[in-house]
């Protein structure tokens, strides 16, 4: 299949969900099962295409040197100052996120298999459109195209939450939309400012991200009072959108609401992929284009990351709603990623980049399983659940697996990322900062370690109450009452079939099994996943890391000078 060029392969992968959406819409009159089958086939085909593309990417020696793969380029709006291109390509930064988006879309379809009865056509069409937007945003190589996909992901998710969500869905949908939109319009202005600055100084109008990265190296945005601190201003503008997306702690309030009200499929995509867009934005734009400003902001964002870890964990600890608990655990885990990213050491940033995938797998898995629990017991209240392990052992197994992945059990994927982030952060705290910062950095790093303990506490405590222990709420599908001591081996017959009905069905297994495979795969051979991304991450973070080191060096020298001079 050498005739199948990488470019058309990439384009086909992104277009496949859209084609599937049209097909799902056309056969909508044939009923729920036809629609969901077509959606499942579409996402599986897309996943196969994406997987094959990733294999081809890894096999291509040129990509190891950082060249983007599968370039697609059409002019879109080329007129006057505009040189907007429909330009796509994969590189080390986007490779795994691209694959993750394809993988989680399959999960999103299968978790909705039985849950969505009302207007299924619209649901699956929106889910597929969302998949196309998610694939597109990671492949975009043009600033405006990136922004188009970045914003467009909001629209399908707005409808998914607002139509198929739970009780407070309307408020959640609108709040989610307005909150993220407000942040990202400022990001938009920041990106335009970079483009215009580059155009004015390099005398070339380009919206191409790579050219802008190279161009801002030659003509950096001013970071002086005379230049109006333009670089810092632009950094803050970009931060507004990315921090809301991540979310970084004071801006996280939309997330629990949106997650709790969203249908399971929407939660999976939201937690698994869309939260990562913020971090991806930092890596793609802020860090390489605005290194000095990143270096100035890094300690504060590092601190906000730690605040998110601790705050998210503490709030998760007191939750009574299982889905809300996992939503807050997302806040906490995204805090690790922010912390690792702004530690600005190679180990920490690479760990943070890997942790994007890890968190995508574990949180998507947990949200999927919570959705399945809700379908069975019609409650997400931890106090009303219990004894799931005896009623649905496989569900319990997977829940335990993703819990362990989430709290970072060695051997599973979460451990690798978390360990690298903490290791890198301690490196930074120990030897990478000036004496004035060292104490603060050490305290923050230690707090982050405490966050690991807190994370294990709230997750395992929730598991203990919800999955094990006595049964409190009988499954609605069963006509029998189950008392606390009722094990899996006692009375067969009618009770036994109830147990069978209660455990994972084939489509639910399809939803979580692929994630579980990757949980082990990444956990056991992390190098396979770290290596392709490492050069790109290092390239993106080299400039801010150097700027940070220079800044710390200057501060140290100043301190030494102050001490030595009488």
């Amino acid at each position, binding site marked *: 299949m050498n005739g199948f060029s990488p470019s058309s392969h990439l384009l086909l992968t992104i277009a496949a969900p859209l084609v599937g959406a049209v097909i799902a819409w056309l056969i909508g009159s044939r009923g729920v099962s036809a629609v969901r089958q077509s959606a499942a086939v579409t996402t599986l085909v897309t996943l196969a295409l994406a997987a094959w593309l990733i294999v081809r990417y890894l096999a291509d020696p040129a990509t190891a040197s950082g060249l983007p793969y599968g370039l697609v380029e059409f002019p879109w709006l080329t007129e006057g100052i505009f040189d907007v291109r429909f330009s796509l390509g994969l590189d080390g930064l986007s490779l795994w996120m691209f694959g993750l988006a394809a993988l989680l879309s399959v999960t999103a379809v299968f978790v909705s298999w039985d849950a969505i009865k009302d207007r299924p056509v619209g649901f699956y069409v929106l889910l597929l459109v969302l998949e196309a937007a998610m694939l597109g945003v990671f492949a975009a190589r043009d600033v*405006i195209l990136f922004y188009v996909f970045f914003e467009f992901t909001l629209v399908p998710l707005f409808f998914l939450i607002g139509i198929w969500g739970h009780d407070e869905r309307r408020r959640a949908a609108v709040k989610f939309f*307005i909150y993220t939109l407000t942040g990202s319009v400022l990001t938009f*202005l920041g990106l335009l400012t970079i483009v215009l600055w580059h*155009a*004015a100084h390099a*005398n070339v109008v380009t919206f191409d991200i790579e050219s802008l990265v190279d161009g801002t190296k030659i003509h950096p945005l001013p970071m002086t009072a005379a230049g109006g601190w333009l670089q810092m201003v632009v950094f803050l503008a970009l931060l507004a959108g990315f921090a809301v997306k991540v979310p970084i702690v004071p801006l996280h309030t939309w997330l629990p609401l949106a997650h709790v009200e969203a249908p399971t499929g929407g939660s999976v995509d939201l937690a698994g992929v869309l939260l990562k867009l913020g971090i991806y934005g930092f890596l793609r734009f802020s860090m390489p284009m605005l290194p000095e400003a990143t270096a100035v902001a890094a300690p504060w964002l590092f601190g906000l990351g730690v605040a998110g870890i601790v705050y998210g964990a503490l709030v998760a600890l007191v939750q009574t709603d299982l889905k809300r608990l996992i939503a807050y655990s997302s806040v906490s885990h995204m805090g690790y990623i922010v912390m690792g990213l702004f530690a600005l050491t190679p180990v920490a940033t690479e760990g943070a980049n890997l942790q994007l995938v890890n968190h995508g797998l574990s949180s998507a898995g947990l949200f999927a399983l919570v959705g399945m629990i809700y379908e069975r017991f019609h409650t997400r209240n931890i106090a009303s659940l219990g004894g799931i392990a005896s009623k649905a052992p496989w569900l319990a197994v997977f829940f335990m697996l993703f819990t362990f992945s989430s709290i970072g059990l060695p051997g599973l994927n979460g451990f690798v990322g978390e360990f690298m982030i903490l290791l890198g952060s301690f490196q930074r705290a120990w030897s990478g900062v000036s004496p004035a910062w060292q104490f603060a950095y050490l305290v923050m790093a230690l707090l982050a370690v405490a966050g690991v303990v807190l994370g294990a506490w709230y997750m395992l405590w929730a598991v203990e109450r919800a999955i094990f222990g006595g049964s409190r709420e009988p499954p609605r599908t069963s006509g029998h009452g189950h008392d606390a001591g009722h094990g899996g081996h006692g009375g067969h017959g009618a009770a036994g079939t109830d147990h069978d009905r209660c455990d994972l069905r084939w489509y639910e297994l399809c939803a979580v099994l692929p994630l579980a495979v990757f949980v082990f795969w990444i956990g056991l051979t992390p190098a396979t996943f770290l290596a392709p991304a490492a050069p790109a991450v290092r390239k993106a973070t080299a400039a801010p890391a150097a700027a940070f080191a220079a800044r710390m060096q200057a501060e140290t020298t100043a301190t030494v000078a102050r001490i030595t001079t009488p």
Partner: protein
Amino acid sequence: MNVTSLETFSLVAPEIVLVLAALVAYLGGAFAGLRFGWLVAAAGIVAAMSVTRGQAADAAFSAGISVDPFSTYIRWTVLGLGLLLCLVQSGDLFAAAVSRGPGLHRGSTCEEAGTFLLLLAGLSLVGVAGDLVLLFAGLELVSIPTYILLGLKRTDARGQEASLKYFFLSLVASAIFLYALVCLYGIGGSTDLGAIAARLNAEATGRTAQALLPLAIGLGVVGAAFRLAAVPMHFYAPDVYEGTSPGNAALLSTLPKVAGIVVLARLLALVGPAASPDLLWRIVVVLAAVTMTVGNVMALWQSNLRRLLACSSIAHAGYLLVGIAAAAAPSISPRLLTTGGLSATLFYLATYAIATIGVFGAIAYLGHRWPEWTSGSGPRPPREEIATVDDLDGLSGTNPVAAFAIAVFLLSLAGIPPLPGFWGKLALAISALEVDGTAAIELGSRRAWFVGLAVLLVLNAAIAAAYYLRIIAAMYFKTTKRGVQADGGLSAGVAMLVCLVLVGLVTIRPRSLLSAASRAGESLVPHVAAPSANLPDPTDTVAAR
């Protein structure tokens, strides 16, 4: 420039065709049926389009008429919008014809169609006017038919209030604008715009010019603000829109805005390089900032659909002013190849008008709905006109096509990518950020003003999303038992679908429209731009990559 009168006639041939069609509609109305008037109107517009197409696009001056890319762009906009509005307006006809309600008037459609054609002719004349008198005459030819259309459509108290309110305020605005023209005449000693510009350039520091120019600018901007529904002449819009039909509301929210933009653009071309350039952009920046914020904040609290859209049209007037402000403060960095502010405004105007006419077309098409009623609870109450946001509840179930179309239009107005409204806001934001693009952002500097304006622009877009989403949420997230009648007539539905197709086209190929707008803007306010040789050829960059 010696041009024979015959050539002058040929320059305004499209307007003459429109007036002739209006006469046919007026006279033929006595003999023909209801539908005849709007058929004539549509035919007249198409004929005017073909005449416009036949005209040479290069600049031609004659006796106060300038046919250049700018006026051609305005002509095409006017005629295109006219055709769409024609469809929406004739939709109103059916709503009126089937309604036995007291407020709506039956018949008189041929007169309406003729009046509408006169309005278009006036607007088209405003576009080509290169002379103060012709400009004012054109504006009056826009205003007077508007009064008649407003008065004809509804005869209940609210409709009368709306038309009277519009009438008086419009008179005041015209008077104010006339003062501005008087001042310009005082400066230039001529009614010809070119002569006035020449005089302004020649003696920019002269005492008369010093005294009169600020006055002319201020009065002119206020006069234009009425047409745009911009602060400080914005407050009539919600009442008037509420008190008229959807078709008239569509008309009011688009055509007068075109007139306002033309007036501002001409004013800009006149004084741009002259004496006190700082004054104009400062006024427009403040007006733009206040207008969009006021419009959006007002819209947040509206429950009546037409009031809400009126407030949103105020906000969009503010966005339109952003480009005008940027054009009034030409960039000092000539190295940048720019798409100037005026081009951005002209582009935005088209994207806004398509989406707005689409929304009003959809509302006109939906017409009435049944009130809450169960059999056995007395006689069935009469149908209600669709007026509030709540009336659209559950539309996605009862009329999915209309719901989808309205959602797309509203998302475009909100500026969600990749819809046309996004491209428009992108052009506006770039034009604002470009002003002094290389200078530092210091407090009080021109750059700071415009960066602040750009920030306000995008934040307003986010505020606006809140109320647009409210409508979308009503249509998609709520359910209802009250069926929608969809009795507004097929033609309004066709207008809605045509607008949907246009939105799709601009989404995929924003380039065609933007390059037309760009040529139009350049021709009127030439921008300090580098020769295009400075930039690498686009095909070269592709190859290099």
